């Protein structure tokens, strides 16, 4: 499998009036052709900032402090906005959280998709552009595309709008798709529909996808690999199988335990105590230590490195150090048949 996207020790900060916000800290990851990498974590953990920094869609206050971004083998770390606009839509594209606001209200849906088609195929004749627009609308399963093409966003429902956004994102045949919580703003039934459409399209086009979500339930259905982020860092990364059935990081344990489906019939829904730390001055040592029931003294002093569990599975917790006491994971036992 070919690596389409790679970040090496990427750190991104927002320079605000109240100080430097270290939104993304030392993130290294790869996305391979055709796979779906899910990034999960609580709000404010840097999932969105990571993707937007790769596409350079962050406001001017955000800067890449260190690290590298390789897209399709090219180092785009220092690309200007002008250079980026050539890659956006063609190499990678993005779907946003709120379909109610991400379409231009004064342009027809057809025009907005057409614009995305034409921007990367400037010489395409008009008829063919229209054909392509209709094809895209069929691809994202918008009924009656001939009618819908000349309608405005306000005439579309939330789910339909998100499909239109998907059509726009796919118009330039991108190799990588970032989906930034594409179902969060939709209600549950529509969520399921959109996820279905998403999965079908992903299978059909084999497009590499970075799927951001804070909902592990959603992720379980779409992801090949999962990266768990906490306080701007990746704390655990592995195949979906490994993360769901053999999680190693206490934070992942906490996230999985708090899935309502696992507490069915029980009196209590376990939750993670406390709040994520502010990223203006991230705490010394492991940022998760404060909330970690398994924290050891070293967690407060030194940041854990990424420990390798298998070829594909890494986790940043001192519990994996050989000197650490043996701790049995409170979750994910199914794999061992208990």
């Amino acid at each position, binding site marked *: 499998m070919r690596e389409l996207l790679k970040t090496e020790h990427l750190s991104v900060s927002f320079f605000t009036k109240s100080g430097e916000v270290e939104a993304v800290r030392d993130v290294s990851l790869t996305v391979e052709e055709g796979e779906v990498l899910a990034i999960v974590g609580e709000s404010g953990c840097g999932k969105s900032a990571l993707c937007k920094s790769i*596409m350079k*869609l962050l406001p*001017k206050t955000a800067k890449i402090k260190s690290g590298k971004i390789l897209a399709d083998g090219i180092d785009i770390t220092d690309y200007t*906005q*002008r250079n980026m*606009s*050539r*890659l*956006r*839509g*063609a190499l990678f*594209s*993005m779907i*946003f959280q*709120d379909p109610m*606001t*991400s*379409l*231009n*209200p*004064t*342009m027809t849906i057809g025009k907005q998709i057409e*614009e*995305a088609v034409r*921007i*990367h195929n400037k010489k395409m004749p008009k008829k063919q552009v229209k054909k392509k627009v209709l094809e895209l609308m069929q691809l994202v399963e918008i009924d009656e595309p001939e009618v819908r093409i000349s309608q*405005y966003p*306000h005439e579309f429902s939330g789910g339909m709008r998100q499909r239109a*956004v998907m059509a*726009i*994102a796919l*118009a*330039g045949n991108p190799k990588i798709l970032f989906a930034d919580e594409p179902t969060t703003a939709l209600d549950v039934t529509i969520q399921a529909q959109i996820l279905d459409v998403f999965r079908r399209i992903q299978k059909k086009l084999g497009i590499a996808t970075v799927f951001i979500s804070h909902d592990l339930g959603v992720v379980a259905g779409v992801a090949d690999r999962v990266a768990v982020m906490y306080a701007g860092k990746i704390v655990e990364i592995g195949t979906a199988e490994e993360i769901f059935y053999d999680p190693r990081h206490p934070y992942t344990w906490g996230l999985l335990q708090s899935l309502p489906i696992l507490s069915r019939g029980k009196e209590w829904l376990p939750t993670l105590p406390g709040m994520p730390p502010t990223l203006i001055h991230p705490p010394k040592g492991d940022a998760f230590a404060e909330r970690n029931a398994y924290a050891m003294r070293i967690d407060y002093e030194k940041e854990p490195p990424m420990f390798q569990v298998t070829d594909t599975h890494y986790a940043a917790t001192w519990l994996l150090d050989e000197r650490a006491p043996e701790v049995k994971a409170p979750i994910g036992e199914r794999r061992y048949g208990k």
Partner: protein
Amino acid sequence: MLYYGKKLVIFMISVGLLSLVTFYVSRLAPGDPLFSYYGERVEKMSPEEREWAEEKLGLNDKISVQYSRWINQVFHGNFGRSYKYKMDVLDVLKSRLGNTLLLGGTGFLIIFAGALLLGVICAWKEGGWLDKIICKAGTIISCVPEFWLALVLILVFSVSLRWLPSSGAYAVGQEKNISDRILHMILPLTVIVTEHLWYYGYMVRNKMLDEIRADYVLLAKAKGIKKSRIMLVHCMRNIMPSYLSIMAISVTHIMGGTYVAETVFSYPGIGTLAYESARYKDYNLLMIISLMSGIIIIACNMAAQILNERIDPRMRISRQSEMQEVDNYE
């Protein structure tokens, strides 16, 4: 149709109220209307002569009686005669209207286009030195009082440098000479434009900045569209409705500015006429000028609304649903 009918009724009521208020206020304000009719001679008039003159002009009756008489005349197409010019007020107006339309219209167009240009430039370079300079300079310049600026301009360009004429709309006998007219318009136009330009330019800048931060811009960026196209095609479409309605309302503002500039530069337009008629109590002339100005303003606001609905498709919907509600009630 009902929609336009309703608008028309509101329009009529507004105009009616406007005429009533102007009529009463002008008559209750201190001043001597006989002065505009008889000029200097008023001072030498005996009380009997005054009595007779007021009787002749119908100024002795109660204001309500005068008003109903005036309304009656208006419905017969007669707006009365000007005390000062001793002609039908419409003819007086006609002789001045062209000048004002030329001056105010040109000023309006320059402001309309200039504000858009300045606003977009500033939004484009948000926070940069060009934006900062334009913002600061614009604020300072638009704070300079109109009449003062006018006097300074006259002092510099007419008195010291002798480049430009200080008053009038054209030199004697040069009524049809376009270059002479333009020459006479430069100073008043400068005043009108500098006074209003930044006010609207700043609005465009801020509206543009709001739009640039909207989510749809992020999607447009993500699909690979360049900043120029995003700003000029996507954002522009979205600020146009509010810009047009602001500009339609600005007609009032700019008209007022034109009137002031006309007065300072003795430009023979409606503004000078309005000033004179209010000052010297040329009642009939004052009424027709305020009515005309009012009608222009109300019509502009309505035009703005209709334009808005053309550009922003969401407004059409809201109008429809509003209409459906009305239908339900009836």
